[in-house]
């Protein structure tokens, strides 16, 4: 079984979000980039577990992005994986990202494509299902548990108000969230090994973006908190009713 793990790079969760050029450009100044947590903690570790157990023969990591994405791919390789692929394209449109990955993957014979539930920067959660459609594969989203036995995959995934257990055959695209695996920390051996692992750069396929970000806006700042005495919960209830109008 060959596994492809889709990796996006995102600003660190504690980054200060700011925009320049009249709120049209995200300012990356002072921002540290990390592997999208869903990709790092869940899908990548799951792929490594499958390789360690002998179920998988190869684990490839892929990203769509410019050269700036390479340090993050090296970090991912330090956790494990046999090779990394960077498709040299802009990553601002989800369709473009998915179509680039699908275009590369269609000739590679991957049995399992893993991605994260969503990227924590643009919060789309769309790339996985798009790849599945473009490769004509099944898609199981919001997985919290993934088991592979031979050609059969069992996934426990979140649905509205509960969870569902699904079974299907390979190949399949799965988007992973909490529960799929336990986060790992790269060790010195992994970091050393990552230096010599291949990081292939693939030219972008001729695919056009179907959307673009025009501008950004910061959310309105809160008015400031109104403190209410712990002995006067009646007042809080009144305010929630007459001022906030939520009850």
């Amino acid at each position, binding site marked *: 079984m060959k596994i492809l793990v889709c990796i996006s790079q995102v600003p660190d969760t504690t980054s200060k979000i700011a925009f320049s050029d009249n709120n049209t450009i995200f300012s990356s100044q002072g921002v540290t980039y990390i592997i999208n947590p869903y990709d790092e903690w869940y899908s990548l570790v799951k792929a490594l577990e499958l390789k360690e157990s002998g179920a998988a023969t190869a684990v490839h990591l892929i990203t769509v992005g410019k050269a700036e994405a390479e340090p993050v791919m090296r970090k991912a390789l330090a956790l494990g994986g046999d090779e990394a692929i960077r498709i040299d394209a802009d990553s601002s449109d989800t369709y473009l990202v998915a179509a680039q990955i699908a275009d590369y993957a269609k000739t590679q014979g991957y049995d399992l494509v893993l991605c994260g539930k969503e990227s924590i920067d643009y919060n789309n*959660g769309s790339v996985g299902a798009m790849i599945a459609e473009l490769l004509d594969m099944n898609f199981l989203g919001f997985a919290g548990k993934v088991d592979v036995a031979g050609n059969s995959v069992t996934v426990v995934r979140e649905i509205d108000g509960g969870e569902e257990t699904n079974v299907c055959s390979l190949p399949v695209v799965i988007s992973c969230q909490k529960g799929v695996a336990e986060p790992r920390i790269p060790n010195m051996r992994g970091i050393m090994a990552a230096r010599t692992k291949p990081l292939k750069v693939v030219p972008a396929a001729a695919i056009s973006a179907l959307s673009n970000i025009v501008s*950004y806006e910061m959310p309105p700042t809160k008015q400031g908190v109104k403190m209410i005495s*712990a002995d006067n919960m009646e007042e809080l209830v009144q305010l929630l009713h007459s001022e906030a109008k939520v009850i």
Partner: protein
Amino acid sequence: MVVVLVEHSQGVFKKKSLEAVQYAAHVAQQMGTGVTAVAVGKVGDEAMQALGQYGAQKVLHTTDARLDDFNSRAYTKVVTAAAQKESAKVIVGLHDTTGRAVLPRVAARMQAGMVAGAVSYPDLSNGFVIKKNVFSGKAFAFVNISSDVKVIGLMPNSFPVVTGEGSATVEKLEVALTDADFSVQVKEVNKATGEIPLSEAELVVSGGRGMKGPENWYVLEALAKELGAATACSRPVADSHWRPHNEHVGQTGGTIRPNLYIAVGISGAIQHLAGVNGSKTIVVINKDPEAPFFKAADYGVLGEAMDIIPKLTEAVKKFKASQN
């Protein structure tokens, strides 16, 4: 035409789907066209006709015994068939577990640009520009879709639902589905019955490590019950198995935007806020006046959770009684 995918639970359309129909009707009006809803599986004509009260003129209905279980491939074919039949320029669905599996597939199939998690109507004055949350609620982006066909995943609870007049006509939609479309078997479904699903709840009571242990959750549950609220928690609470994982909200858990979020004994770490900062009103109850959550709150109460919550529950009870 604008086509909107509606979801039902045992024949009853979900409130968020009524919101989606209403949203689609508004978009259709902006574009000078009409709305067709797409319903899948076992649902009665009356319920479908009633979608007219939210602006649908027509409902296309596809039934097939195999469609009773959700399947992203089959649903994608149904929605695409409906969009093609109606020559739809815009396809609307929800940014929820169903929509997030189907809409991207539809978008890829039709080579349509997509906005996932829309919180505004499109601005048609210069393209087709929709506002969405980005950076886990720390900002908004205005996204322009440039393709001919456009797909919108509406963030649930973005617009209040208003019931109007009207009745939709119902038509059967035959879609050629193959066994490959149903090659995912559903072995088991576990749904909490009777409770309000967190993602749809308008009121949410949430607890953090400050609750000290699972044995104290009964006070939060009593408050939630009195309010008719769902319960949520911070990540360490789910990690310690005090509460089930599906209650965990934040960057790595669920994202919710209820009308009211009551956070008890939660410090307000940025990763927690990422999942809840879309809430319309936030109440923070914490014993530490320096807790960062107070900065993101509308109302704050300083003190011991176990003292305050029963008092709040009592006050809600009195208020409810006075309303009757």
